[in-house]
């Protein structure tokens, strides 16, 4: 191959932004607070936990009764019958306690899972709601794949902790404290042997928690990066192949997979230390107690039965130790993920209703741009500079200019998708920042450059902006958008399902549905962003007709490439590098604007010589030439 090696880092793209602040357990506490919203379930779960734990603590007691009655029976040789009775009673009691324990253990686990599902539900809803309201500029900077991972994988990690880790931790804690109390009252000396493991366990917990959490954070970040490469390759399949870049993409993916692999190994290495240490603490404690209790038994200050009981309780001290690794694992993962969730939830959209914002209703459609300047960021190169113009109600404004001259930016400022950097945009005299977003946008209908349809029926898609619209209204809108006929050609008519990304419809059909969708909201202001560029002439003609209908009696902003489309506009803005180079009507601009005349001739002169084959048209062409 003639291609030299890739100079790019095989690191995944889109991972350049500085990482957020270091994770800490405060975010986890904040996540855990969501449990408080499900108080009834929480009481059920944690109440059951206490009862189940108590039942668990009863079992050794009963085992002791058995052993004691056996020993008693063996030693005294006398009262076997009563010993056997005690034995049977103890057995039955164990079975009974086991049943109670099972019931409450189930209630504990089931309700904890219910809480976790509810918390996950809350998180997903909140994330969804937050993302729905993120500003356009935020969306420009972030990939949906990455947001998706947060709403799915990260939520799941937190859910796992709340459903399992939290209960486990709480249970371990209760068990530990209760057991220590029991032990203390039955044999303080032996309990003192056990106590040193508590600070030890605490140290292990703290150290590993602190070490593991950033590690899991890195795992999530690298997982997102891998997903981004994947998503891009699937979405950009054709481009990758067209340029024959499969090997490089493979290398890039392998790089991301390697990065994830390395991080996973790092985590594994840490935990392959943690797990044995946790087990060891538990087990060595057990061995130590065996020795010290053995001394007491041999010395005659302890019976075998008592020791047996003590040793069984001991298991409950060490059990939590053994689970420590697991808890730390869940907890560190969850707190890393909680951090990523709250990053989104805490994102304030730059564009929100001001306090005291008023409702805008029944506008006439008077629009003013006053010395509007727009920059992507403070101190940056302006994308729009000093744009001033005024549109009277019902007028049509056409925006014309080179690609990148700022046409789309101007119309994005009107529904306040972006915020002006300087100057102001007024609708009926109100600064758009002083009215509520909802009421502002309700007055504006938009047909975007790229049509996104949603999975669902054609009917639901047309009704997107007004879900409660009746079928007659929907049909009327479709008729006006020249869409009714082709819709009725489908066997299912308006109930025809639209596939993923509206793939069952042609570009022109999608465009007309988008127009019907905008029309149904009966907006006072209409924005049409170059909505006919991707369709053939016949379709374009139909759409043009539909648009004419749509614009009657409304203030309309039209971005188009062809003079023919903008020719009748009341006001034409000629944009050049973010400035209004000229404004006026067609006739005025032909006189005054060099750029406009140039655009005009670029379209007309091209066609004129060819038209020579038809004398009639030539004559008309000549008659309109400036």
């Amino acid at each position, binding site marked *: 191959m003639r291609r030299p090696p890739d100079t790019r880092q095989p690191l995944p*793209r889109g991972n350049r932004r500085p990482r957020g602040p270091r994770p800490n357990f405060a975010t986890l506490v904040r996540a855990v607070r969501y449990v408080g919203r499900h108080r009834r379930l929480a009481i059920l779960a944690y109440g059951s936990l206490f009862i189940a734990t108590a039942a668990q603590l009863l079992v050794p007691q*009963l*085992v002791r009764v*058995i052993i004691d009655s*056996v020993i008693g029976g*063996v030693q005294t040789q006398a009262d076997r019958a009563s*010993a*056997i009775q005690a*034995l049977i009673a103890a057995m039955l009691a164990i079975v009974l306690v*086991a049943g109670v324990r099972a019931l409450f253990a189930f209630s504990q*686990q*089931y309700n904890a*899972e*219910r809480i976790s599902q509810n918390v996950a539900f809350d998180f997903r*809803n909140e994330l*969804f709601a937050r993302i*729905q309201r*993120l500003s356009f500029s935020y969306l420009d900077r972030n*990939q949906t794949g990455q947001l998706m991972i947060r709403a799915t994988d990260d939520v799941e990690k937190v859910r796992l902790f709340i459903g399992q880790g939290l209960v486990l931790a709480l249970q371990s804690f209760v068990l530990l404290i209760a057991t220590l109390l029991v032990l203390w009252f039955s044999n303080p000396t032996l309990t003192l042997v056990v106590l040193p493991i508590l600070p030890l366990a605490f140290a292990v917990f703290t150290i590993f928690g602190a070490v593991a959490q950033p590690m899991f954070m890195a795992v999530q970040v690298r997982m997102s990066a891998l997903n981004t490469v994947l998503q891009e390759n*699937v979405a950009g399949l054709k481009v*990758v*192949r*067209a*340029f024959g870049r499969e090997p*490089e993409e493979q290398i890039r993916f*392998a790089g991301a*997979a390697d990065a*994830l692999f390395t991080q996973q190994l790092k985590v594994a290495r840490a935990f*392959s230390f943690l797990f044995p240490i946790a087990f060891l603490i538990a087990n*060595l404690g057990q061995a130590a107690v065996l*020795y010290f209790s053995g001394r007491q*038994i041999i*010395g005659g200050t302890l019976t*075998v039965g008592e020791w047996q009981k003590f040793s069984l309780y001991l298991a409950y001290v060490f059990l939590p130790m053994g689970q420590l690794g697991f808890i730390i694992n869940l907890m560190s993962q969850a707190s890393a993920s909680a951090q990523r969730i709250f990053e989104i939830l805490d994102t304030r959209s730059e564009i929100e209703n001001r306090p005291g914002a008023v409702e805008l209703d029944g506008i006439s459609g008077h629009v003013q741009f006053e010395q509007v300047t727009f920059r*992507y960021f403070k101190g940056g190169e302006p994308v729009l500079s000093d744009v001033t113009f005024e549109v009277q109600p019902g007028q049509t404004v056409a925006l014309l200019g080179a690609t*990148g001259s700022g*046409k*789309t930016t101007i119309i994005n400022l009107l529904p306040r*998708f972006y915020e002006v950097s300087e100057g102001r945009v007024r609708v009926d005299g109100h600064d758009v920042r002083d009215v509520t977003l909802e009421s502002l*946008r309700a007055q504006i209908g938009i047909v975007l450059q790229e049509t996104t349809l949603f*999975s669902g029926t054609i009917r639901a898609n047309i009704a*997107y902006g007004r*879900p409660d619209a009746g079928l007659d209204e929907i049909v009327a809108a479709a008729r006006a958008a020249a869409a009714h006929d082709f819709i009725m050609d489908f066997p299912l008519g308006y109930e025809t399902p639209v596939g*993923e990304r509206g793939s069952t419809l042609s570009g022109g059909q999608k465009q007309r549905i988008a127009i019907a969708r905008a029309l149904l*909201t009966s907006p006072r202001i209409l924005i049409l962003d170059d909505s006919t*560029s*991707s369709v*053939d*002439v016949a379709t*374009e*003609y139909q759409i*043009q007709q539909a648009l004419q209908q749509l614009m009657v009696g409304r203030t309309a902003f039209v971005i188009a490439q062809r003079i023919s*489309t903008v*020719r*009748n506009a009341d006001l034409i803005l000629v944009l050049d590098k973010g400035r209004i180079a000229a404004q006026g009507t*067609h006739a005025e601009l032909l006189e005054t604007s060099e750029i406009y005349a140039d*655009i005009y001739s670029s379209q007309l002169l091209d066609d004129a010589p*060819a*038209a020579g*084959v038809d004398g009639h048209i030539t004559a008309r062409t000549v008659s309109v030439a400036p």
Partner: protein
Amino acid sequence: MMLGQRDWVFQQEARKPKAVGETLARFWTYFRGYAHVLLMVGLLVVVSTYLQVAIPNLMGQAVDCFLAPAAQGTVASTSAANCWYTTLPPQSTADDYIRGLGGLVLLIAAMFLASSLLTGLQFFLMTYTGQNVLRRLRNEVFAHIHRLSLGYYSTHEAGDVMSRITNDADTVQQAISFPLISVIQGSLLVVWIGYTMLTESVPLALVALAVTPVMFVATSWLSGRARQAFRQVRRSVGNVNASLQENLSAVREAQAFNREEQNIETFSESNAASRNASIRAVAYTSALQPTLEALGYVAVALVAGVGGAILLTGQSVMGSTVSLGLIVAFIAFTQRFNQPISQISAMWTNVQSAVAGGERIFGFIDLVPDLQDAPDAVEMPPIEGRVVFDRVWAEYEPGQPVLRDVSLTARPGQMVAIVGPTGAGKTTMANLIPRFYDVSAGSVSIDGIDVRAVTARSLRAQIGIVLQDSFLFSDSVMNNIRYGRPGATDEEVVAAARMAHADTFIQRLPDGYQTVLGERGSGLSLGQRQLLAIARAALARPRILILDEATSSVDTRTERLIQKALEELLRGRTSFVIAHRLSTIRHADQVLAIRDGQIVERGTHDELLAARGFYYELYMRQFRRDIDFTAEPVSA
């Protein structure tokens, strides 16, 4: 391209019920390279399982050899009979007992230490192996993504393909490290402890094992119900994800139509459905652990009670006697026996879903690409640019030809324009040249070489394509343009951007050429994206250039300037141009007008106009529109 949706679906369905054994055997091929590691893990598992059995045994010995005799002051016959660790002489003092106990405890501690270290080592080795396998699986799936033809993706959801690398690989990963060890170790333990119990005391062992069948029944019933419930969960989670995916990529539409509230409500519904399905499913899984635990307690009670009764009555049952130490040891045995059973039952679900995940991954890797390099494919030599379509037929769905009997010859350096209404087959023609799809009959050849006879990469490397929907990567502008030719210098990139008239707007981006674009270039207008795509293609200096509505959203002035620049660039190279704006293609050497998959007219622009046929109609409609609109005010 000849594979319709039905065939794919059928292939997938056919794969589902395949044997678990086959998938496991397939997994083995991945693990084979780590056979030595696995062998070591196996040894470690055996040793640590041995320790797990031996340790409680030794603890029982502490009672039988030291504690019970010392406590009773005499050598109790029953205990001593079960003491094999060491027998102290009858006249031993308390100190002797303590010393003996100390030795035993040290041994136990050492074994605990060894056991812990082994556990850590096993965990690491398994994770190491598992992650390696996982990485290889991911890379293979990814490689296969690019091996399958575009036709595959027109009938399959991208999300489904992606989930093989993320979700399915994840389930495999979750099964590999801990669960696999647990299941193996658990099985060993169960067998071993079962065996030990039987050799120690048949009657007590039978008592202890009596509960086990009940455990199996409970497990299989509960997990069967859980599996059913989880099927529903997967469906509802799928709905949530689909809804998320769709809504996250359409936030702009939602805001434009004030749909936020409504969308939130709708999402909340599917979210709630998923939550409720999950809660139904966890009812079964939550019941599993407590049930098994309770049964475990029942087993302990039985052992303690029955054992105690036997001891008390002093009878020998089935020819064996029972000691207090034996009972204590059996209580421990029973607990140790039941624990792995509940562990296995918990982990087995993981292993099962890993097998299911493996099936899906292998199913994908095994899909035979319908479009592959021929076994004897050669590298495409440097292209001169003679492109010939010889009676080409093409179809996406069997029996529904999109192109019918299309023939054309483009000579090196020619510009060929393809015009016609939407859906006539223009893009299909363009797709055949870089062999994105295969013809169903006829042939496409370049410089006399059939495109199916050369490697796709060497072919495509010489062909530049600019599509209407120009995909950009979420990378810097610089790197996006450089994608066309990775070795290009910054100056060359900037020169290409100038040529495409993209330089002006790039300069005004926040970080100029270093600005990182949003997903698919979001934040740029369609026209801007098209300019970048043109710069990218121009930088690649292709021998053949295909422009499929490449400037449809670019303003006419810029378009003209780009065309002039491209003419310069393409001197001597063949190009294909698809355009609705007929003014763009007036200078083409050949114009092909197609309708319903057939070439209806061919010739130069002037010839076709003179012919007054289909092309003339198309052209006039567009022209008249311009003229009519222009003329109106004058007459007014």
